[in-house]
């Protein structure tokens, strides 16, 4: 066990910043601040109530300093852990610990990126690795494509099955007014799109957008007096298996197996108890890997599991209900948006894409090249 208490903290505010292609001149700190202001309004809190700040972006070396200055706050607890797209799930676990220990009372977790406006190369400077760079891997796509090749080899997973993931995400995105993609997508269109790194075409790969947002956590006691129904943190887990794809122990098994095990144990729940599933879909293979590793199907069966619209609107298991990184928004480190969507689903705020009677949700973050995995399980008051 990790020492965190089930229900030891609650999410009381959640908001996106501007998304897509934001106004010229906006920077990541602007978007973080905008997200926090909107999340505070959502919670019925003031900026000066925030005494814990957790944030990550690839575009500011000392984002914690810049964001504190911008907001005019001096947080008692600060954490700028950065482990890729899963950073914000790590932040949730750290915020729960900080709230439990009294290191702060109101913790904001924020993200901002302008990678579409400034270009990927400028938003995230690629590090040189003398043991990989000479082979010109197009990272991260090539790394995930290597993982997909292994899954296809060992389990017979097909390109059509990968495409099912992209099509389901698109169907959800069409129900989300703020999603980037607005047109339907077919399996044939995925397969016939421009090839990037076999087996992935551009439609197997997440979007490149701007965006940011924030969530606000507090103690369960304080949460009761705020504007929105609290969403309780039931379980957290994390695992790091490698940094570079050439050092990943087994390309068909991710650290989600371990992070999920920890989160389920803390929550006292299993995959059958989860109503809404939000998985970090940077690539179509991700959704398949995480459905397997988080126990929604057996290892190797992810491809057939996602087929026939099983994870699309109206399917047996609602997965990536906002449209995902594939069709809704992906500013580079997408994890925070999974948490925002999970919160909204549990509050019943999702309109046309609302999952009926949702009481529990899993938000699973992935970082690097399947390198860092972090799982958060959330629940309504009924689960406490």
């Amino acid at each position, binding site marked *: 066990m990790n020492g965190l208490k089930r229900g030891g903290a609650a999410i009381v505010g959640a908001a996106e910043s501007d998304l897509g292609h934001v106004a010229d001149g906006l920077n990541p700190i602007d978007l973080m601040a905008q997200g926090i202001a909107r999340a505070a309004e959502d919670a019925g809190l003031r900026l000066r109530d925030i005494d814990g700040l957790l944030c990550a972006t690839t575009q500011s070396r000392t984002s914690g300093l810049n964001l504190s200055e911008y907001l005019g706050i001096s947080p008692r607890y600060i954490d700028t852990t950065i482990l890729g797209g899963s950073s914000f799930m790590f932040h949730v676990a750290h915020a729960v610990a900080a709230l439990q220990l009294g290191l702060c009372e109101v913790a904001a977790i924020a993200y901002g990126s302008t990678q579409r406006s400034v270009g990927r190369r400028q938003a995230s400077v690629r590090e040189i690795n003398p043991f990989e760079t000479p*082979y*010109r891997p197009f990272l991260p796509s*090539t790394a995930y494509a*290597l993982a997909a090749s*292994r899954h296809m080899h060992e389990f017979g997973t097909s390109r059509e099955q990968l495409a099912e993931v992209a099509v389901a995400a698109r169907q959800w995105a069409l129900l989300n007014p703020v999603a980037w993609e607005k047109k339907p997508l077919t399996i044939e269109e995925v397969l016939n799109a*421009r090839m990037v790194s*076999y087996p992935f075409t551009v439609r197997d790969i997440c979007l490149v957008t701007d965006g940011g947002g924030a969530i606000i956590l507090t103690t369960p006691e304080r949460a009761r007096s705020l504007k929105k129904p609290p969403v309780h943190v039931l379980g957290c887990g994390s695992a790091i298996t490698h940094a570079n*794809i050439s*050092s990943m122990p087994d*390309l068909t098994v991710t650290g989600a197996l371990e992070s999920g095990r920890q989160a389920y144990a803390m929550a006292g729940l299993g995959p059958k108890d989860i109503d809404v599933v939000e998985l970090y879909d940077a690539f179509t293979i991700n959704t398949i890997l995480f459905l397997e590793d988080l126990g929604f199907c057996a290892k190797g069966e992810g491809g057939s599991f996602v087929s026939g619209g099983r994870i699309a609107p109206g399917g047996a298991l609602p997965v990536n209900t906002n449209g995902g990184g594939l069709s809704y928004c992906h500013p580079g480190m997408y994890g925070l948006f999974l948490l925002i969507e999970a919160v909204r689903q549990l509050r019943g705020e999702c309109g046309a894409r609302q999952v009926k009677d949702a009481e529990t949700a899993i938000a699973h973050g992935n970082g690097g090249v399947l390198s860092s995995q972090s799982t958060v399980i959330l629940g309504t008051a009924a689960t406490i």
Partner: protein
Amino acid sequence: MEASPLAVYQSYLDKGELAYQWSPQAGRAVFYPRLVCPYSGSTQLEWRVASGLGAVYATTVTHPQQGEPYNVALIDCDEGFRLMSRVEDIDPMQVRIGMRVRFRLHKPPGDEPPYSVFVPLEGAR
């Protein structure tokens, strides 16, 4: 001052050899080369020259915006270490997982240091 692990690795490549480290304490190969064994914590790592034989563990074909598609692969070397490389002398889409391959030195034009690539080892499995 001792040479860095990268410099030693490159010096083997300059001689046309693919080198890796062996950790006597862990009883296994270590790759990429480093100062500390990740399996035992020992700083005693020995250099060995690999046979250059291995098998494809994972493979993809990357399509650049300009230029021809090329292979990127992970190779499991017979000595028990894995590295990123490229399989040449074959259509990149025909590179198969499990295919036996052999090390070949690649000398890029200009100042770039030489690096390892692999070619199919025909007839062997």
